[in-house]
């Protein structure tokens, strides 16, 4: 079913070098609308580098990036955001001293006229619009006037996700979304990923937690030493196979002896 549709993102033969080190070596992959792809690999496998090429932090040395079928040049993070590619980093990039809706509108505040000529913040509009997007995603936060400082890790993650969705992200990259969360909160974030997927948003998840990735991802892409060593449908594989790809089959064989 998914295969019939056109990929929303396609990267072809991406190469990224840092001096003599080849961090990503000729990796190709595609992601379809509404699909959740788990990007797996050991430390230094090139996951983050590949993602940073897509999100505009790095520029590839070779290879092409296609978004919605068009070749795109992503020179900086704002280019990516303008295309509809949002990245949620581990640190979430929230201003903890501001409240929920101010963070959702950060940098793109809604203004209104006071006394007919002065631009002031339109708190009411930002509050109601933020509430709408949170409701749509089934996120519960006691009050959107609470500062981020007062929220739990999972709630913060939800705010970061809502922010990108509010600004019409069609493609979401999540770097270790569950790493810092408790079990109940992890489940909520994974539920949220499923909701996003059901609403047609494509998601790439980078994670070390195989269990989480297996729960939500449709497809897995495994990198090792900068190269793609496997691409598997989640339902046709198992964690053992994936681990052997991540660390290299020989190593697994050796450890069994």
């Amino acid at each position, binding site marked *: 079913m998914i295969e019939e549709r056109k990929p929303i993102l396609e990267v072809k033969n991406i190469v990224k070098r840092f001096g003599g080190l080849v961090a990503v070596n000729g990796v190709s992959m595609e992601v379809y609308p509404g699909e959740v792809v788990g990007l797996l690999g050991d430390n230094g496998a090139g996951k983050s580098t590949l993602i940073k090429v897509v999100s505009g932090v790095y520029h590839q040395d070779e290879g092409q990036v296609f978004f919605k079928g068009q070749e795109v040049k992503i020179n900086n993070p704002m280019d990516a955001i303008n295309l509809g590619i949002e990245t949620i980093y581990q640190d979430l990039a929230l201003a903890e001293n501001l409240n929920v809706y*101010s*963070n959702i509108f*950060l*940098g793109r505040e809604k203004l209104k006229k006071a006394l007919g000529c*002065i*631009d002031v913040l339109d708190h009411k509009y930002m509050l109601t619009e933020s509430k709408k997007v949170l409701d749509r995603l089934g996120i519960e936060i006691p009050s959107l006037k609470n500062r981020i400082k*007062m929220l739990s890790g999972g709630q913060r993650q939800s705010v970061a996700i809502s922010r990108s969705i509010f600004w019409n992200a069609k493609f979401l990259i999540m770097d270790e979304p569950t790493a810092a969360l408790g079990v109940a909160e992890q489940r909520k974030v994974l539920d949220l990923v499923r909701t996003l997927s059901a609403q047609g948003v494509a998601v790439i998840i980078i994670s070390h937690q195989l269990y989480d990735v297996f729960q939500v991802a449709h497809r897995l892409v495994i990198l090792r030493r900068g190269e793609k060593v496997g691409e598997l449908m989640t339902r046709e594989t198992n964690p053992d196979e994936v681990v052997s790809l991540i660390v290299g089959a020989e190593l697994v064989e050796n450890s069994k002896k």
Partner: protein
Amino acid sequence: MSDENIRKSSGINREWPVLIGKSWIYLFLLGEIVVFSYYGTGFFSAKNFQNVMVNSITIMLLAAGEIFVIISGGIDLSVGFVMGFASVMSAKMMVTFYTLGWNQNLAILMGILIALLIGFLPGLLNGFLVTKMRVPPFIATFGMYGIAYGFSEIISYNVPITKLPPGVGAFGNGYLLYYLPGKLLNWFSQPVGLARAEIRELVPVIPNIFVISLLIIFIFGFILSRTRFGQHTYAIGGNIDAARRAGINVDRHLMKVYMVSSLFASLGGIMYVLRFVNGRADAGSARMLDSVVAVVIGGASLYGGTGSMVGSIIGTFIIAILETGMVNLGIPTFNKYIYVGTILIVAVLIDQLFPELVRRGD
């Protein structure tokens, strides 16, 4: 969920401390007024409170600029000597134009405008060093502290600039309103043709320079709390990377923030000239500490991200009342520094020990 439950279950026990913690600066201010009114002579009088207003102007202006910088996560140590620089510049210009035979009002206006224009420069340079050159704010503005002082001394040849046009003092020490009980009411200037006894009875209401300062501070308080500029200032102080990734032009914003600070320091210098009818390099030297303390008492964190203009004004009055009260009681004013320093540390301690009380006036 769980947070909320905790808060609810312990609500009754914690409500009072929270309320006191949030409003302790108001209580402290009230306490000061009560104590000085009780022990002092004529402290609780309209005349004395007008004195407090005049005394508070310098700290209030410096604090109004400093609050922007501190909320953005920086600090501006140069304000005291930038103020001195502006006072010397404007005084020098007023004297120069006046001796050239200009109309005195025009000479005064030009002196003020030139000081304001040049007053942007230290801020521009501070902002440039902090953002483009990645010099820590502490160092950049500390350097500017010395540079501004040096230039002021060069311009003034190491002596206060005097012989200003007479209109300076008339305006600077004038009041918004003059009121003769039961007889007459006059705006802006002392009524003419009064008997000597009547002049003695005349009640001046609210110093001119206090009104002007408060008006400008009100405008910038509005900018800080209601506009996108203010919101971005808070965001940068809260998480500079988040602000960058949200597409805020952080460097340009910080340059503006340092320029606001330097603008207020220059206003401080101009008000000094209007009030004391001279311009001197060390006009605001001791006031930098006071302005930072006023801002911190008012709820700003030196780590950035919190603070408010109203808080800074209350902080200013806490210091100004203290000074005036000590003079009233005949306590040498250098004792003030001990109290001010102590208040600063207590304010920071309260914020650190009870983080849930962190105050931020919206």
